[in-house]
């Protein structure tokens, strides 16, 4: 068994990542620290750095190679572990970035409008909770997968049991993803309202694009659930 790295970008993914690159540039333009009329420059500098990181990740993720396994021989333990760790990193980095964005939103809202109105932290905290649920479930599921692949000490029927358990894990993952993503969407609607409230063009455009991306992920997860639970 060997790992194969291949670069397979299609036009759709490149167009979509261009859309998110546009959004990150808008965030950077909003949070330029050179603007002097911003009242709280400390947190807008955090947004500026976050925008640069998100932009870098979007540009890198176009050129990242896909990874695959060829089953010419019986799977080896170390190769499988490497495969799962690479896929884990591919999934982990965007969730970590969104978690950081959520933390910066919470800090910003706490410093801007918490003292006037305590309801205003509701949206960013929901956004943070959704990201934390996603992160925790990602770590738990990949630790389960890494513990399952222990073929050398197992019999065949035990491997079949493990595969059944993996299928159950996929079902649980879809349900957890639906819950977490709907929490994210509900939380980010409040941030979207805030962006319209401040009436800043760049922030409104960034928030509407990010909201659109969250809605698109929600629809894709619902689509996957439909295929998984009601096939045919």
């Amino acid at each position, binding site marked *: 068994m060997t790992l194969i790295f291949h670069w397979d970008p*299609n*036009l*759709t993914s490149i*167009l*979509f990542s261009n*859309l998110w690159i546009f959004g990150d540039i808008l965030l950077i333009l909003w949070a330029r620290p050179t603007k002097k009329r911003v009242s709280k420059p400390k947190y807008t500098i955090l947004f500026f750095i976050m925008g640069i990181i998100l932009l870098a990740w979007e540009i890198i993720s176009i050129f990242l190679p896909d990874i695959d396994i060829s089953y010419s021989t019986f799977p080896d333990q170390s190769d499988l572990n490497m495969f799962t760790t690479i896929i884990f990193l591919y999934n982990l980095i965007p969730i970590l970035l969104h978690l950081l964005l959520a933390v910066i939103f919470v800090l910003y809202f706490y410093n801007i*409008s918490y003292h*006037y*109105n305590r*309801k*205003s932290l*509701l949206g960013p905290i929901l956004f943070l909770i959704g990201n934390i649920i996603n992160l925790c479930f990602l770590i738990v599921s990949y630790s389960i997968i890494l513990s399952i692949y222990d073929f050398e000490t197992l019999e065949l029927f035990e491997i079949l049991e493990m595969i059944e358990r993996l299928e159950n894990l996929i079902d649980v993952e879809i349900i957890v993803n639906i819950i977490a993503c709907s929490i994210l969407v509900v939380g980010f*609607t*409040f941030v*979207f*309202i*805030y962006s*319209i*409230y*401040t*009436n800043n*063009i760049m922030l*409104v*455009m960034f928030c*509407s*694009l990010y*909201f*659109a991306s969250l*809605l*698109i992920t929600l*629809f*894709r997860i*619902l*689509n996957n659930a*439909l*295929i998984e639970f*009601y*096939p*045919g």
Partner: protein
Amino acid sequence: MENKERINFFAVPLIGGILCIYAFFGLNLLVVPILLAENPFSPPLIFLFLVFGPILLDLNLGILLIVSAVTIKKGKTTFLEERGKILIFSWVIVGVSLGLGVLSITWFGAFLFFHEPGLVGGLVIILGDFFYKHVNKRNFIFGPPLGQEGEKLEPSPMKEHPPITYRKFCTNCGFKSGKESIKFCPKCGNKLVSK
């Protein structure tokens, strides 16, 4: 101040229009080969029509939305004049793409992808307009509305401001404080006066 129009509310229609255009540029390339591969000798024309019709509609309405957003930005029209048109376009886009989603559940067993950006763009415009209406109210979730650029904020007629006295000078020892007002003199303890 409450019902004043915010001039630069063109950002949400612009993003919605861009998302509607993406349905044409990105995703028809994904769908047509699948349809042709499933039926290579007799591609059902009604499938192609039902896929391309809504995508072309999305493209057309998205271009119109972007044009109206640009005219709002340039100041030729206002958002309140264009609002009805924008809302009708986005409702049409959302309705058509939801109908296509229901049809594709019956055909393919899944809610398909190709009309997704148009659906999301229309939803974003409708939600943005809804929030835009509610943000101008008082006692909103983030507090009262913010003052806009170039807008004069008048003091409310119900309250009169109490007279503010800055106590600076000491009559006993001649102490003079800076900008801050202190009640008693730090040197001799005498009460300070303003003049």
